[in-house]
């Protein structure tokens, strides 16, 4: 069973890789996007305070180096968005190209199709993140304890489960929309604003703080930042909350996707 699914999984990954390769400028724009945010953070910080460290940020988060704070947050965000984009943008692109129904009719299980889409993006994102770490170390003299960073990987994996759940639920919604692109953009932007990647959540209005805590991204970022800076002992509460919210999203994503897929079998897919 597993062996028979490996071939289509590989085929989906190869198909996506070929599409990616046909627009090579994507490499450049993807790399520049990360560089853009971190460089902005550094220059804003220096322009406003004249220093590399911020006592105000340290008081709020325990991090005085605002570049390290932003890099950690952005890395979690980029990693997390991989699941959303892997599940959703691929469905959207197939809808736009008019090939989704053919792919769904292919002799492979539906999760294989989604996994193939996500896996390639995860590999690409991991390569980008390693590249970023090295680049930022040289370019911005990034001070990050890499051992502590590695120690935080299990926390990232717990958060990833919740992010996968959200991605599956969003993929379900996409099947229903006539023009799903803007819906995904809105969702991605909400995730971006509420992820706490560039700033601590405490700076947001109360209502937005609650919304941010209800998504899996900000709790993951919070837990990772705490583990990297202070170790697992101090991050107990954050990790417990992350386990709870990730479990809820896994369940919600699975149920939401199965339900919408069942509906789509009856009413058909909305092609673009």
């Amino acid at each position, binding site marked *: 069973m597993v062996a028979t699914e490996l071939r289509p999984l590989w085929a989906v990954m190869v198909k996506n890789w070929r599409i990616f390769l046909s*627009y090579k*400028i*994507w490499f*450049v*724009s993807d790399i*520049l996007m990360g560089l*853009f*945010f971190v*460089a*902005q*953070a550094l*220059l*804003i*910080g*220096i*322009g*406003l*305070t*004249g220093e590399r460290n*911020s*006592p*105000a*940020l340290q*008081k*709020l988060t325990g991090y005085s180096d*605002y570049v390290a704070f*932003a890099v950690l947050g952005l890395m979690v965000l980029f990693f997390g968005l991989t699941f959303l984009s892997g599940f959703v943008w691929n469905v959207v692109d197939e809808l736009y190209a008019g090939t989704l129904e053919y792919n769904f009719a292919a002799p492979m299980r539906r999760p294989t199709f989604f996994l193939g889409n996500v896996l390639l993006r995860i590999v690409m994102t991991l390569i980008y993140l390693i590249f970023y770490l090295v680049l930022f170390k040289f370019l911005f003299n990034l001070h990050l304890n890499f051992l502590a960073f590695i120690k935080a990987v299990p926390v990232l994996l717990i958060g990833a489960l919740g992010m996968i759940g959200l991605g599956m639920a969003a993929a379900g919604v996409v099947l229903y929309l006539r*023009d799903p*692109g*803007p*819906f995904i*953009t*809105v969702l991605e*932007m*909400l995730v*971006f*604003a509420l992820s706490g990647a*560039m*700033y*601590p959540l405490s*700076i*947001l209005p109360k209502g937005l703080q609650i919304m941010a805590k209800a998504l899996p991204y900000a709790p993951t970022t919070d837990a990772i930042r705490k583990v990297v800076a202070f170790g697992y002992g101090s991050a107990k509460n954050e990790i417990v909350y992350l386990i709870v919210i990730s479990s809820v999203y896994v369940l919600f994503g699975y149920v939401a996707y199965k339900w919408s897929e069942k509906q789509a079998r009856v009413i058909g897919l909305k092609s673009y």
Partner: protein
Amino acid sequence: MLAVMEKELRMFFRYPLRVVSSIIVGIVFLVQFIFFGQAVLGGRYSSMLAASTGMGDYPTYALIGYVLWWLFTSPIEAYIFGIRRELQRGTLEINMLAPLRTIKFLIGLSLGWILIDNVLMGVVFLFGVCLFKIPLSWGIILKAVPIFMLAFVAFLGFGMIFAGLVMLFKNIGALGQIFEFLVMFLSGVFFPLNVMPYWVRAVGNAIPLTHAINIVRGVFVGKSYAEMAPSLQALLLLSTAYWLISYGIFRWAEKITRVVGYGGY
């Protein structure tokens, strides 16, 4: 030209969620940097920023930069994506055969988008004013409007360069976006330019956005037009120069594409 504009407006509003998504993208982009600045500062006022630019309130500083940057990128995107959309739909050559001059078709195409884009920008600006409690008075608005208009004329001329390039190279969307983000660093949109090396500031001074931002920030802190004369002169000079350059590039590109064809996407 009106028919071309109407066509673009109808297509945009055919998908209302696109309006919402464009506004949310604009807002999220803005708040990222303002909230980050406030977290680093522990408030909204920076004495260092005040010393280097005359304006210490960071949300006001960033909002002005961001809105003018949006105004600057609007014609560039209009030309690039207007042509690209026509190429994707396979309607560019058919429209080029219509009984109107190419330049009129392109201007109609871009004006439709610019109109939509500027309304969206206005909504994001008002949202920023309310969220960050930006001190805004009728005096400031009346004094800033002529600067916005002058700046927009300069930005239109600058954007025309891309109209020529897009006719020659077709799919330059990624290149255009890289350029737009680069301009953020060169023109002091979110941070003062004094943190950049001298040569970067020199390049920034050749971009009309840099001067437009300086003038509008000056208006907000109560400077008179006379006090901002050097920036006003630079803006006028660059406006004339870019219109001449872009018109030359456009005519050249038009001549070449008449020979090699417009191609597909």
